[in-house]
């Protein structure tokens, strides 16, 4: 098969037309029904450069038949060569462009797949700054409370724990009969935060049910004392002001 558009020029040289093109001239013979003609039947957008060479071969061969009739045909031959050159460039360029676009499309597709996968699997740190954390609202274990809230809850927990320990200790002494009749034992709870009023109120009322309460309230230097006495004297010493409720 022909390797360039100038293949047919071999015939031109052969019939003595003024041609400057030498070198890659090839003389080749094809039968009338051989494949180069099929290139004419192809869809324009499916043409390859090889098809262009086939076309140029067939045109050259046909021109050979015509040129024997007069010199005026040689001008036409040069123009045809020029058109074929342009045709070759266009087909070449077209095929290259299609190839480039296909590659570009594939690249973008893989890139898109990668991004979609990333954003669905990881929580995606793309929007967050270096010191920020992206919180997934669907995560049941996501952080919800502030440090201050945690601090307050822990304080309350420890406060209640302290009161429980005091009550347990008292109960232990009470049960074991260690508590002397003459020397009353005292338990003291100091609470600095106003929030402690509630549990202590409950605690003292709990005690009054078991112990016949004889409470006398003393005010001394801004602090109030509640004194419960019976077999056991339990003094709840409250530093703070919010004890007036009882």
């Amino acid at each position, binding site marked *: 098969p022909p390797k360039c558009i100038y293949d047919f020029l071999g015939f031109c040289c052969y019939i003595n037309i003024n041609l400057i093109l030498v070198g890659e001239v090839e003389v080749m013979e094809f039968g009338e029904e051989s494949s180069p003609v099929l290139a004419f039947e192809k869809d324009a957008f499916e043409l390859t450069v090889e098809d262009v060479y086939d076309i140029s071969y067939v045109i050259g061969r046909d021109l050979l038949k015509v040129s024997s009739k007069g010199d005026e045909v040689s001008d036409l031959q040069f123009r045809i060569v020029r058109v074929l050159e342009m045709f070759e460039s266009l087909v070449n360029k077209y095929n290259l462009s299609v190839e480039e676009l296909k590659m570009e499309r594939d690249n973008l597709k893989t890139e898109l797949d990668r991004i979609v996968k990333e954003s669905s699997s990881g929580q995606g740190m793309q929007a967050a700054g270096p010191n920020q954390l992206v919180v997934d609202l669907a995560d049941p274990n996501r952080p919800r409370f502030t*440090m201050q809230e*945690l*601090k307050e809850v*822990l*304080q309350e927990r*420890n*406060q209640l*724990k*302290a009161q429980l*320990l*005091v009550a347990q*200790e008292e109960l232990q*002494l009470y049960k074991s009969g260690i508590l*002397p009749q003459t*020397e*009353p*034992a*005292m*338990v*003291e*709870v*100091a*609470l*600095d*935060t106003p929030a402690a009023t509630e549990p202590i109120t409950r605690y003292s009322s709990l005690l009054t049910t078991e112990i016949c309460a004889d409470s006398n309230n*003393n005010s*001394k*230097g801004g*602090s109030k*004392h509640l004194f419960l006495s019976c077999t056991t*004297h339990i*003094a709840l*010493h409250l*530093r703070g002001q919010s004890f007036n409720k009882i």
Partner: protein
Amino acid sequence: MTGYFSMAKKTYDLLFKLLLIGDSGVGKTCVLFRFSDDAFNTTFISTIGIDFKIKTVELQGKKIKLQIWDTAGQERFHTITTSYYRGAMGIMLVYDITNAKSFENISKWLRNIDEHANEDVERMLLGNKCDMEDKRVVPKAKGEQIAREHGIRFFETSAKANINIEKAFLTLAEDILRKTPVKEPNSENVDISSGGGVTGWKSKCCS
């Protein structure tokens, strides 16, 4: 207040507040659990923020109630835990002899003490997990050396094997007791508020 309570008998003579600090996972909670409940638990549950336990001991004929605060080692609880330094009379800094990083961080913890605790706080260094000799990465001599440099006591302990735990707490309590002026106990309270109201201590050592 003093007059009112001095006539009452109390279940203890003195209240000492201690604090445990150190990297996460060195065994602070286990050390405390061994001392308070004489038990050991292998499951690791990270302490949330701050917790405490109470243990009454007898030293020199005095009943001393130890209120021991256990802090979370994790950095995220830093603001919560440091607010408890101020009320402490004794601080135990714990590292793990099988964890080099926890030893390297000692200086960081000592800086925290300088920044947040009382100036006269008793400090003590503990190298925990000393039963795991095969995994040791911090030689005992290194612990002794850093303790000497900072003028603090040092023990290698094991909460698991019950080594030196009671000794460490009692020694720390004794050191605090030595500094405590003999005085009729009065306002020792179970003070569970953070930092602030250090009853009995400040007034004692400063008056």
